[in-house]
């Protein structure tokens, strides 16, 4: 029996490469190439659809676990997607080699960082954040920029990656167009 190990992808290119490799191994080269090309085009279009915003710093908190709070940095796969959209990840400042890109953050750290955008990837309801101590004053919560992601899609780098990227890009564009955030 031949065993193939695919490590966690760390970038879009990595994910597409793994899809092509699976196609070769299962005898579906053309379909895998087609899928990867389609995803690549789709994702690039999403990235291009977000205007460059060097003067608008969009800080983001991506929650993957609660009690305690866990997030991810730009070194991870999802983190790299957010970085490609020009987001500033609040978890990056806290990253150490020990956490492998998935640091634990205290509530005080998150509130002080005051992210403009929050993504929830752990089946947590957006409405529950305002009930957490101190969170009601956080920009993303006060301005209703807390987005519930489909935990299944957000945790995998399969063919539905484009769906996740589309949602991330849409939310970034929405935040960029909120004039009250940039006065």
């Amino acid at each position, binding site marked *: 029996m031949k065993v193939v190990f695919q490590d966690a992808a760390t970038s879009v290119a990595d994910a597409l490469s793994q899809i092509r490799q699976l196609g070769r191994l299962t005898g579906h080269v053309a379909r895998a190439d087609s899928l990867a090309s389609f995803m690549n085009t789709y994702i690039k279009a999403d990235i291009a659809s977000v205007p460059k915003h060097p003067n608008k710093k969009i800080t983001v908190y991506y929650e993957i676990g609660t009690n305690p709070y866990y997030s991810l940095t730009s070194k991870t796969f999802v983190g790299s997607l957010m970085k490609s959209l020009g987001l500033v990840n609040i978890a990056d400042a806290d990253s150490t080699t020990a956490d492998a890109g998935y640091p634990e953050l*205290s509530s005080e750290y998150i509130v002080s960082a*005051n992210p403009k955008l929050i993504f929830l990837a752990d089946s947590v309801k957006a409405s529950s954040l305002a009930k957490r101590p*101190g969170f009601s*004053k956080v920009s993303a919560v006060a301005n209703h920029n807390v987005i519930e992601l489909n935990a299944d899609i957000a945790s995998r780098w399969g063919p539905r990656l484009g769906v996740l990227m589309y949602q991330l890009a849409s939310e970034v564009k929405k935040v960029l167009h909120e004039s009250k955030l940039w006065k």
Partner: protein
Amino acid sequence: MSSNPPTARRVALVSALTLVGLVAAVVCGLAIGPTSIATAKIIGDVVSHVGIGHSSLSPLQSTVIWQLRAPRLVLGLLAGAMLAVAGGTYQGVFRNPLADPYLLGVAAGAGLGATFAIVDIGGGLNTPTWTPLLAFAGAMVAVAFTWGVGGRGLHSNAATLILAGVAVSALLTSMQTFLQQQSSSNSIARVYIWLLGSLASASWRSVWLVFPYVILCTAICVLSGRALDVMSVGEDESRSLGLPVRRVRFIVIAASSLGTAAIVSAVGLIGFVGIIVPHIVRLLVGTSYRRILPISVVFGAAFLVFADTLARTVMAPSELPLGVVTAAIGAPVFVIILSLRRRMVR
């Protein structure tokens, strides 16, 4: 422990130093954290709340102080005070230096209740809401069960109750382990974090929920000091001196257990405070519970707030489990004081 009773001057000195420590702990608890906020600004903000001067804190900094650090500080004070005085009371009522607030099954019962809520085998439970409720219920049921098993309530004696507590704890712990074994690795991790104790989820709501229990139970424990001093000569001797031993034991154990259950439901299982603080205080002020218990209240409150300040800053912005810090600080301090005390006695 001490060959000579401590002088009144020494007791006053220890009391004063403990109060100074409490004030220092409160200042540290408010001023130190992952976010750097000048202490002078914090003091100015606190003073502005009583109408003196103006606060120079930003709205976000004010949120950090009043919505995150302050409730955490108050809950830490309440938890430290309750666990320390409950530990001292248990040591007195059972005349056992190894007694702690979890002796009669509070920890095992609360652990089972919390695990039930976190694992949520049937689904449908709102874990954050149900965890403290089931932990509290589990703790109280465990103590009631121990009381029932340990010699039919008022007719029990101390040794029987301790043995019943050991048996009930073992039974409930086995049930908790079974539940964990049936759950996912994610749930096991969350149960484990809860078992190590933390003040990270402190809020004003949790403070107000435990406040009446802690105030009432701490007062009962402190006021029982004279009775515990009498009981230290033995049960039969206490009875011959006119002390209603069984009634006193029931009231004291009920108060200690109720207060501990309330605290455990809010902060999880924080070990070592209940056993180490009364012993340290005993080494400093002698064996009378009229001195040990009130000083333990203040010492325990200060100790836990200092420990929590370390827990949330050493590896900031992530946090160390509070139970790890209390043991890491408490054990060496206790050994040092014990060693110094032995030299003084010689």
